[in-house]
């Protein structure tokens, strides 16, 4: 308690910047969100980024 925490990369480089819904969608689509470059403000990954990523590399996103 009393320690502010943030659950994003610890190296000062934020990866996977997206809303919780998009992050969940990525999991459901089996996409590693860290692999994406977002097109939203501050590099935010949008739902459309997921869609175009899965179109581009349909075979890529299987773990």
């Amino acid at each position, binding site marked *: 308690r009393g320690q502010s925490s*943030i659950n994003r990369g610890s*190296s000062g480089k934020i990866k996977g910047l997206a809303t919780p819904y998009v992050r969940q969608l990525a999991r*459901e689509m089996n996409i590693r969100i860290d692999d994406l470059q977002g097109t939203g403000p501050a590099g935010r990954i949008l739902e459309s980024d997921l869609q175009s990523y899965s179109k581009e590399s349909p075979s890529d996103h299987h773990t």
Partner: protein
Amino acid sequence: MVVGDFPEEVDTLVIGSGPGGYVAAIRAAQLGQKVTIVEKENMGGVCLNVGCIPSKALIEAGHRYHNAGNSDEMGISVGEVKLDFTKVQDWKQSVVKKLTGGVEGLLKGNNVEIVKGEAYFVDDSSVKIMDDKSSQTYKFKNCIVATGSSPIELPKFKWSDKVVSSTGALGLKEVPEKMVVIGGGYIGIELGSAYANLGSEVTILEGTKSILPGFEKQMSQLVAKRLKKAGVTIKTEAFAQEMEETDNGVKVKAEVKGKEEEFEGNVLLVTVGRRANTEELGLEQAGVEMDDKGLVKIDKQCRTSADNIFAIGDIVAGPALAHKASYEAKVAAEAIAGEPAEIDYTAIPEVVFSGPELASVGLTEQKAKDEGYDVVASKFPFQANGRALSLNESEGFLKMVTRKEDGLVLGVQIAGHNASDMISEACVAIEAGMTAEDLALTIHAHPSLGEITMETAEVALGMPIHIVK
């Protein structure tokens, strides 16, 4: 094995009914599992019975009693203000009952089977549940352990009717004339200030250099100032050494900044931390690994080293907070249901219901720098906000930490009236990866405290309207 102990077969077993356990049980049931929940004490766990809820009720009562005569400046004066502490306690308990009764109803409404008793692991697929009279074995497919935590007892300060934990402090029959508090963390501060507001002469002994050491100095200082105004004595770098019972209380010897001092109180509240309830559970027999602090090791899905056993809440790492427990509860329930759920939050808010309220989410300025971010830290005072002024609550500030290159909001700290309400917006903003610009361009109602968030974002952008740069 007792004669007649035929194991009962259950699907998902939840152990403990706190904000971890009961939320896990409900969500698991909603996802189609047949759920059984076992609780050895009270439905709702620490949080509802002897934690978050009763403490906030007591704080509100203290607040109202203390502030009843505080509107003189606004033209409203009251005759003698009287406190009927028995009634305060009754009211507090009525709030607790509404919520615990509610939880029981919710569990039943979601067809969760409730078992009273204490669970103990026999192996990785069965527990024994004991109550006063009997014991029964339950075989489970999956189990979620949410047994929470208990106050730490100091060897030289054994619990008694005069030496109490937070639980004892919440249940006092009368307001003690004098109260000594060991520990200036949030529980000590919340309960200490509640009793100070209710009329106790309170002394707080804190080991570090300031109370509420997890919060930024400027925030905890505001609280310290308000406490002192309410007559509370705060001793920092103070280490309680030993005590002695007196006729009507205790005498505590402490080393304060190297010097020995003595403090007297009718009640001594010890809040120096909590210990995970993992010791008497038989976790070893289930193959569930723990770390050296007694916390259960889990993966991103809250799964322990035993594949079908999950652990959540105060017994796993991270801040011991109810909303963290409930969040993990949902992840575990979904994981069992085969969904791709993961612990995937960006930030957990922390709130102290002190005067003024403190709330923090995400990174502080220092923490962000330590993590290597190039940051901008921006502040805006409550006293420049029309809503705060019209509520006569103009003390405090909001601080926003943003990433320099693009304004990404990394953290927000608030010290001020209704900080607990205001922090939600910051949680959502951080969680969604929003920037200062996003917040500045969102229209906020006038007059409202939310404008403080917007205006701090404008400070971050270098263009505040209501303070001069």
